């Protein structure tokens, strides 16, 4: 005993020093200095000084809340040891919401990205997914131009061909349906972005497998804001001015007159006297308004609560287009029974009001610019239309010039297509930690999402829209849609620390979710024909059941292992095929804590490896395996003699239909340097989707269609994601701060196997009835364009109708089409920069897409000289016709001449803001901001906007350029 005690006593020395903040060099008061493995230690004094007794060979542990913990060995003879503590990677201890639970960032083993309010995109954000557009590597968000428009969200490119590629979106534990309700703009348009606290994106299978059958395309978890301990009132307001950034180049009225004289002088008598820019006429500049008021605090000092109300009014730049959203959100999160019972109640109610404006872009491009918009002599509400009194004394469809188009401005102004969507969604969550067994927590989550819409489409009586019998009485119809889903989740979590080295937690639970929807449409109310009778339809219910379990193990806080398993069942498939098993394994190694625990430079280095199997079953229809007969609608009946008989027709069925499965391998490296000033991730993934649900041809005659959903296909996808976040200048040190965030994603996909080697055609285009321009073929990336190879002359001009005879049979037909490029980009990049100087802040964010190609259908179906004559009227052309000199649409429609590189760099937003601290003498903060949304686009694409998700440009609702002013007040 003496021997053991001796060395301590003999070699004990006093070590002293000062502990300061590594960044600011300020002394840290009250920092802990401990001798590791013992209970002896001290704390620093008011100057950051300390003195402690330790022996050579001991390790001193320095720690302070908010700062990283450093360890230093005591060497023989050491008397002074000064320490600079870097700021804690508080991000690492932050909790991240993952499926059915939460985890500290440092313990996460899968490819998980979190975005909280400080990472969100600033600017004119109407729908929530735009908050993370361009912010997360591997996630692409492409939003349409219409107000409240939905977005195509793709995580790692999606994993499917014919089944849905949309990720699963979970709001506070409630997965929502991916089907937009009829009359609504999109699934997320009824969610107020100001209510969102954070997004967690689960990208690889090891994170998503716990969602089993819906997880193959990734998961986005949205968490809404809750109450706090202090009363906080926030008021955000924004007004903006929407403008049209550019138009398609077509001939002006005078240029058109000249063109007709040169090329078709025989038609010159059809020219009018006016000078109309039809594109200007169908657009308008509008004002956008967004207001949000949120109260956060604690009711009766014990019940954290948050109440927020919001109003967004976004009239679209297309004439008559409108979107308005009113929302209210309430969150209560009481804690009862001494903290053992935590309740969270989220209730949201929103109302969306829309007026839909039909797409008149194509019409506006081709309308004769020499005709006026208004005509005082017109019987059609004062709008100019092509008509000719046929002298029978009755004004009806016989008086319209045959095959002539209708006035685009009239089409917009004489039509009133309105809808109102009411949505209630929310959840009630209980977490109960058993008092006699504190490691065990039981959780129950009940959720509901109920949306109902009603709409009415009214067309003026004096419009040129005629009923089937030729009468002009306008048109009227109504519709309602209802859809809802209910969720029950119940699970147990057991969390245990064993001897401070080994931790594990186990979760096991059950989930039940049911989706229902009905719809009603009144049919045409202005005629009595049997085919315009009301139709009531109800979708087949969808029921999803799952059993899930997950275990996390942590050894020394350095080696982490996660195992998860989900057993999922869906009502979409037959009894033999409806259960699927989805396992996942992930391993993480906190390299820094293991190999470089004392490093000042490396603050975080973590290697993650994961594998998992996820499923996909969203093909839209829910009862393909049932032997069904459909009864024909009143317009689809057959007559025997003079008796009209409703018909019954058997429907395509596939009892063998089952899940798609995607196996994902993921390797990731999280890194952080200099106190996480520079941090980021590097990920590599490989996905293989098998049993793809493909809508493909089936042996003719064996079933009741020539095509249907089957599991035949195999598809691989691999990619690289890189993200870096750098605080170039840190705010704490100076008045100047600059943070940049950059991410890049490269994805390659390839179809390995497809439905007995056949091709799947899709991608409908204009310029004929039923043409397709895209193809899925084995051995190539999905969705390549299927076009003819244009032949050019010595001056590099295209020769109309001359294509390379690729199969050498001296005939140019379908067999000479080849696969060219893709609508998917090869590389996508996102960049965000945030400056601040004193109270001034400036931020901008950019997005780039490289390698995506568009098929310019605007030109391919319109830029040909023959189209100057549209049967009985004149028609304008895009000026692009001068480059090709083509005459006939049918000859050139499918040429690769119209394929264009649509790579682009887009400045999504530039915002400048100034914060006035402490206005009104009450400690309130006021921030004023100004900015531009959709500032500019750099691209070689000749069309209106290169960012077209489908790759087929057949006119789009243009994305407005918005000039914004905002005022945020914080009490």
């Amino acid at each position, binding site marked *: 005993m003496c021997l053991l005690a001796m060395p301590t006593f003999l070699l004990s020395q006093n070590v002293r020093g000062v502990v300061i903040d590594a960044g600011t060099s300020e002394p840290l008061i009250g920092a802990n200095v401990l001798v590791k493995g013992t209970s002896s230690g001290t704390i620093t004094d008011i100057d950051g000084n300390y003195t402690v007794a330790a022996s050579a060979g001991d390790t001193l542990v320095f720690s302070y809340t908010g700062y990283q913990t450093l360890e230093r060995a005591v060497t023989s003879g050491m008397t002074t040891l000064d320490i600079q503590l870097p700021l804690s990677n508080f991000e690492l201890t932050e909790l991240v919401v993952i499926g059915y639970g939460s985890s500290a960032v440092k313990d996460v083993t899968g490819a998980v990205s979190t975005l909280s309010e400080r990472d969100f995109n600033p600017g004119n954000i109407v729908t929530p997914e735009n908050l993370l557009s361009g912010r997360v590597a591997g996630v692409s968000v492409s939003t349409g131009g219409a107000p409240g428009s939905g977005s195509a969200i793709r995580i790692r490119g999606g994993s499917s061909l014919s089944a849905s590629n949309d990720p699963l979106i979970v709001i506070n534990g409630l997965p929502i349906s991916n089907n937009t309700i009829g009359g609504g703009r999109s699934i997320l348009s009824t969610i107020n972005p100001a209510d969102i606290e954070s997004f967690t994106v689960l990208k690889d299978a090891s994170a998503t497998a716990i969602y089993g059958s819906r997880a193959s395309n990734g998961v986005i978890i949205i968490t809404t804001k809750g109450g706090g301990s202090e009363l906080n009132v926030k008021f955000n307001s924004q007004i903006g001015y929407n403008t049209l950034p550019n138009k398609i180049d077509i001939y002006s009225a005078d240029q058109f007159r000249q063109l007709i004289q040169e090329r078709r002088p025989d038609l010159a008598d059809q020219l009018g006297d006016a000078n109309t820019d039809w594109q200007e006429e169908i657009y308008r500049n509008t004002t956008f308004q967004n207001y949000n008021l949120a109260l956060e605090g604690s009711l009766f000092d014990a019940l954290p609560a948050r109440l927020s109300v919001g109003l967004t009014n976004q009239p679209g730049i297309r004439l008559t287009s409108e979107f308005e959203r009113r929302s209210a959100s309430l969150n209560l999160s009481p804690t009862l029974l001494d903290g053992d019972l935590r309740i969270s109640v989220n209730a949201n109610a929103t109302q969306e009001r829309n007026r839909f404006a039909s797409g008149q872009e194509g019409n506006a491009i081709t309308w004769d610019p020499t005709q006026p918009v208004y005509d005082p002599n017109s019987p059609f509400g004062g709008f100019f239309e092509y008509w000719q009194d046929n002298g029978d004394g009755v004004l009806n469809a016989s008086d319209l010039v045959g095959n002539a188009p209708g006035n685009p401005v009239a089409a917009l102004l004489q039509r009133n297509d309105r809808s109102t969507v009411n949505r209630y969604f929310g959840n009630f969550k209980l977490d109960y930690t058993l008092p006699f067994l504190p490691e065990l927590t039981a959780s129950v989550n009940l959720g509901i999402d109920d949306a109902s819409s009603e709409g009415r489409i009214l067309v003026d009586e004096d419009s040129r829209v005629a009923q089937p019998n030729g009468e002009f009485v306008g048109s009227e119809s109504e519709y309602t849609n209802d859809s809802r889903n209910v969720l029950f989740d119940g699970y147990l979590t057991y969390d245990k620390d064993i001897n401070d080295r080994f931790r594990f937690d186990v979760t096991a639970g059950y989930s039940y979710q049911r989706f229902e929807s009905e719809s009603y449409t009144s049919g045409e109310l202005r005629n009595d024909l*049997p085919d315009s009778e009301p139709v009531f339809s109800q979708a087949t219910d969808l*029921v999803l*059941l799952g059993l899930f379990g997950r275990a996390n193990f942590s050894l020394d806080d350095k080696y982490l292992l996660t195992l998860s398993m989900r057993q999922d069942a869906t009502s979409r498939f037959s009894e033999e095929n409806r259960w699927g098993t989805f396992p996942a394994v992930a391993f993480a190694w906190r390299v820094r804590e293991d190999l470089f625990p004392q490093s000042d430079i490396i603050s975080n280095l973590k290697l993650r490896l994961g594998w998992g199997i996820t499923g996909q079953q969203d093909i839209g229809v829910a*009862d393909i395996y049932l032997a069904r007969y459909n009864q024909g609608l009143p317009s689809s009946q057959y007559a025997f003699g003079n008796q009209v008989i409703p018909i019954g027709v058997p429907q395509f069925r596939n009892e063998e239909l089952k899940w798609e499965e995607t196996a994902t391998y993921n390797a990731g490296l999280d890194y952080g340097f200099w106190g996480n000033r520079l941090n980021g991730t590097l990920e590599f993934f490989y996905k293989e989707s098998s049993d793809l649900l493909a809508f493909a041809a089936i042996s*003719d*005659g*064996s079933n*009741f269609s020539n095509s249907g959903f089957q599991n035949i296909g195999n598809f691989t996808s691999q990619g690289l994601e890189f993200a870096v976040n750098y605080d170039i200048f840190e705010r704490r040190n100076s008045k100047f701060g600059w943070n940049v965030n950059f991410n890049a994603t490269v994805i390659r996909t390839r179809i390995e196997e497809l439905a007995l080697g056949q091709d799947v055609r899709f991608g409908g285009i204009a310029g004929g009835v*039923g043409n397709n321009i895209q193809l899925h073929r084995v051995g190539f990336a999905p969705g390549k364009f299927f076009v003819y190879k244009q032949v050019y002359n010595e001056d590099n001009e295209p020769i109309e109708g001359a294509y390379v005879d690729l199969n050498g049979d001296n005939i140019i037909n*379908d067999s000479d089409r080849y696969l060219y490029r893709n609508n998917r980009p090869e590389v996508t990049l996102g960049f965000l920069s945030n400056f601040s100087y004193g109270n001034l802040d400036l931020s901008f964010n950019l997005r780039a897409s490289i390698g995506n190609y568009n098929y310019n259908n605007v030109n391919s179906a319109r830029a040909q000289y023959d189209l100057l004559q549209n049967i009985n009227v004149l028609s304008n052309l895009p000026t692009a016709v001068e480059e090709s000199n083509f005459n006939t649409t049918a000859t050139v429609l499918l040429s690769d001449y119209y394929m264009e590189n649509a790579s682009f760099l887009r400045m999504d937003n530039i915002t400048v803001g100034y914060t006035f601290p402490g206005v009104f003498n009450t400690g309130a903060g006021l921030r004023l901001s100004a900015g531009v949304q959709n500032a500019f686009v750099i691209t070689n694409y000749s069309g209106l906007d290169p960012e077209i998700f489908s790759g087929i440009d057949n006119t789009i609702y243009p994305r407005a350029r918005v000039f914004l002013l905002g005022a945020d007040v914080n009490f």
Partner: protein
Amino acid sequence: MIHLRLSLLTLLGALFLTGCVGDLDVTPGDPNAFLAEDFYSSAESYRQGLAGVYANLSITGTSGPGSSNISGIDAGTSQYGRGLWNLQVLATDEAIWTWENDPGLAPLQRSTWGAGNVLLRGMYGRGMAQVAFANEYLRQTSDAKLDERGVSGSLREDIAVYRAEARFLRALAYYHMMDLFGKAAFITNADPVGAIQAPQAGRNQLFEYVEGELLDIMDELIAPRQNEYARVDQGAAMMLLAKLYLNADVWVGQDRYADCLDYCQQIIDAGYTLAPEYLNLFKADNNVNNATPEIIFPIVSDGIVTQNYGPTTLMINGQVGSQEANGEDFGVNSGGWGGALRVTRQFSEIFLNGNYGQDDRNTLITEERTIEVENIADQTTGYIITKWSNRTSDGSFGASREIVDTDFPMFRLADVYLMYAEAHLRSGAGSRSQAVGYFNALRQRANNPATITENELNLDLILDERLVELHWESHRRQDLVRYNRFTGNQYNWSWKGNAKGGIAIPEFRQVYPLPNESLAANPNLTQNEGY
């Protein structure tokens, strides 16, 4: 305590779980959708199921004219009669389609079609779907099934007739497949529903099968002209047999012209009569006017209750001249489809060869038009016709301005008269004077004073007369192939072989290729030679 609570939780969980697993068995929510067993639970349903099999000739899907249960082709273009029309009429001298930007049509009229052509996919798919629907109806009305459902009495007798009609419709589909593609997958109601890859049947096997079926059902069908309009009767079965035998030489190398003549005689004796006015056969009320007794088997269309973009809608809207804007004459929108259909020079030349100067069947409009189709895209080149109409025999308009009420007469008596004459010349059976009598009856019906004598009757004349009488009724290609004028150099027409004046096309184009997708989905099928 702990154990009690834990076991209680487990029990609740288990109860909940088992209760909810049952929810996974869903039923169709749509009020228009039925499980097969529920559909056949009423007496009326057997008639409705039969109507469903017939409907595939006319309607493309159950939700209006824009819906289709065939994929890979525009819904309207996938219609049965329209597919037949495109493949039997457009590929010949009878018509030129202006809008070549619609896929598949240009190669058809320019004789450059390949196995990737969507129109072929549509026709093969639609024809085989007809086989599938007929097979399903036969499965659902088998003796075993009817016994199971307790069906007896007069309904059972009616069902026996329905079954015979379904078998006819299946035979009709195989007849079309045999004519157009020369082969098809062979599936009957003995095979299950699913994704089975049926064996291939060539013309020999299909011929034998169709002949066998028709002979077998003959006695079960209702007597000619005694069944409800639009339903199959013995007249239709006899007609199909006559067609089979008329083409037997081309299809299976057998001389069956005598048998053809025999059935033609039976049809003629069955009580069908020629319409007093030719054009009434092609009007909106051709299901009830004085032309109806001539029609042996129609495809029904109606602007309100049987909406489709089938052959009659196509022809009536397409007939409308771009510069004439005469749509109102036919009961459709004045502009129609912008001058979509014209006729070739060779077609016009036949009508203008001197025999048909005064003839109701000559409806050519020639003013301010060139006889040659100089440029397919220019709708003012080439003559147009006015044969079909959506107005009734007393001049009133059809119910709608685009989809027409005019039924498509697939088989009619006039055809039988000409078949008799041709079969007589080719076989010597029957009587020449009768043949000439039938021939002249058609001329007289058309108010054409030029009747012929026995010496003047010859095969070439019959071919021309078939064009004059039956143009645009989906017979031409079959006739040209039988006369060996479709391929080769014997007879060329505007844009045949992708040349303005027309050139020879290779012999392998006498049959159409099987679509690529169909070959891929069923490896038992082999492609026709030359493709």
